[in-house]
């Protein structure tokens, strides 16, 4: 056993773990952070978009040296069917501001930088160390962790579980259940490299401007899922994800889905001639507010993806991870400052503080959306995208049909596919869940 005792052990060096370790170290606590990868970032997978506001709260001047790709000036939402997409695009020169709001990043590079900040703040960061289980006393209080190193038990007053979506340690210690197949999505992603000028020409960008495309529709073949295309400086992150339970139900393969997405006529020209340099897969928490497990206990708190903190509607996760990590650290610091023990009662401060933040408020707002999207996946991801595509084409194609007749055709197609009550029901359910 390592004799040295720490104030806090942080398990994991992703967004949540780094935010927690940094905040704790900045406040003078003795922090040990454990990471199983060869460096922070080498096991971490994300699209990825960085939300500046949440990082500014941790590192105000991050723009000076963080490895950022492109600041986003444009967002495109695509509703896709087999050969078409109907788009809602928003682009604004307002996003070309001194301190941009969102950036694309490459996680392996960004996390390495983030981890350096954690070290500079005074935390001990130990990589290439897999935590195998939590160390608990006879009463079940978490007193530290066990690792795969020789003499691998290490003690601390409190353990911050930032172990990622799988939450293995928490499950092993019976603090929470294993994620269920209908509460997590499996996403696969490729990194497509192209010359910078080619990317800028294809996406209508200049300088470090960036664009994000979020796509849904028949590309997920009736499953609840989304595709994404993010422009980085010299590469494009392209991926698609669907609920694990949907893969289970349909027998679709993740790589088959990815390749069909890549071959879609709206997508193929964007990546034509690219060199693929990586293929990654990752789970994404999709259960929303109702899937949030117990967030604290005797000697422990859980943050980020391990706490299933992900806003599936807005595609936000890393900012919820960063914020929950920071808030957990602030709560721990407060308990420590009062010289109080790290009991569940005292650590409940973390939940109280998190409840008051946008993290829980946003998830609560959309608490009924996951169930709606998951049970109505055929309608929202197949039927409607096809109807909309046909309607748009009918609207645009000039063939001598009087407009009145065209409108009738479109109108009838909606009624035929979903019926009056179906259409009103879908609209009502969507409005209620969105409220």
């Amino acid at each position, binding site marked *: 056993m390592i004799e040295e005792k720490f104030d806090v052990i942080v398990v994991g060096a992703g967004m949540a773990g780094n935010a927690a370790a940094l905040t704790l170290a900045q406040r003078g606590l003795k922090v040990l952070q454990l990471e199983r990868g060869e460096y922070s970032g080498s096991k971490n997978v994300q699209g990825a978009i960085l939300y500046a506001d949440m990082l500014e709260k941790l590192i105000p001047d991050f723009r000076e040296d963080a490895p950022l790709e492109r600041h986003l000036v444009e967002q495109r939402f695509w509703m896709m069917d087999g050969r078409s997409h109907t788009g809602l695009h928003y682009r604004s020169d307002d996003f070309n501001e001194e301190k941009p709001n969102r950036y694309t990043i490459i996680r392996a590079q960004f996390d390495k930088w983030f981890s350096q900040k954690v070290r500079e703040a005074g935390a001990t960061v130990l990589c290439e160390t897999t935590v195998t289980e939590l160390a608990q006393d006879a009463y079940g209080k978490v007193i530290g962790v066990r690792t*795969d190193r020789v003499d691998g038990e290490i003690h601390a007053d409190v353990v911050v579980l930032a172990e990622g979506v*799988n939450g293995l340690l928490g499950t092993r210690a019976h603090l929470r259940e294993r994620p269920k197949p209908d509460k*997590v999505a499996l996403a696969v992603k490729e990194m497509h490299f192209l010359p910078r000028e080619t990317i800028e020409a294809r996406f209508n960008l200049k300088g470090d401007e960036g664009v994000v495309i979020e796509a849904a529709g028949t590309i997920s073949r009736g499953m609840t899922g989304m595709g994404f295309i993010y422009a980085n400086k010299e590469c494009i992150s392209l991926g698609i994800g669907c609920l*694990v339970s949907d*893969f289970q139900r349909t027998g679709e393969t993740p*790589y088959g889905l990815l390749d069909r997405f890549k071959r879609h006529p709206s997508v193929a020209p964007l990546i034509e001639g690219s060199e693929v340099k990586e*293929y990654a897969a990752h789970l994404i928490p999709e259960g929303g507010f109702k899937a949030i497990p117990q967030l604290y206990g005797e000697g422990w708190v859980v943050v980020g993806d391990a706490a299933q903190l992900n806003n599936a509607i807005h595609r936000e996760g890393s900012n919820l991870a960063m914020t929950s990590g920071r808030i957990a650290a602030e709560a721990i610091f407060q308990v420590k400052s009062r010289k109080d023990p790290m009991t569940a009662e005292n650590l409940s401060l973390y939940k109280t503080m998190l409840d008051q933040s946008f993290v829980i408020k946003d998830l609560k707002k959309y608490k009924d959306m996951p169930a709606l999207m998951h049970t109505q996946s055929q309608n929202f991801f197949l039927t409607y995208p096809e109807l909309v595509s046909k309607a748009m084409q009918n609207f645009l194609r000039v063939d001598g049909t009087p407009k009145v007749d065209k409108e009738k055709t479109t109108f009838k197609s909606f009624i035929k596919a979903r019926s009056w009550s179906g259409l009103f029901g879908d609209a009502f359910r969507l409005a209620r869940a969105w409220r």
Partner: protein
Amino acid sequence: MSIEPSVRVEDKLFYNRYLVDTGRAHIKVRPHTTPSPELLTMLKACPARCYELNDKGQVEISVDGCIECGTCRVICEGSGDIEWSYPRGGYGVLFKFG
């Protein structure tokens, strides 16, 4: 079945870097004679196609190309079909981009 070019996952995995922990598979399939529906699901659901049928109709795993997503754990661990852990520290997939 639609006619589409078959996707070679092996080619995709070739882009990635790995440090293989020889002789220490981090995922193990419980010995069986007939595979459970959960195990059979993995033949298609595993994004790295680590799960394959052997000639006796049993599901086998080869973890060398595993990208450590956890999909098989979510599907198969509950039924006891597999034992799932992360690789030892430093081993497994080494993402350059992530």
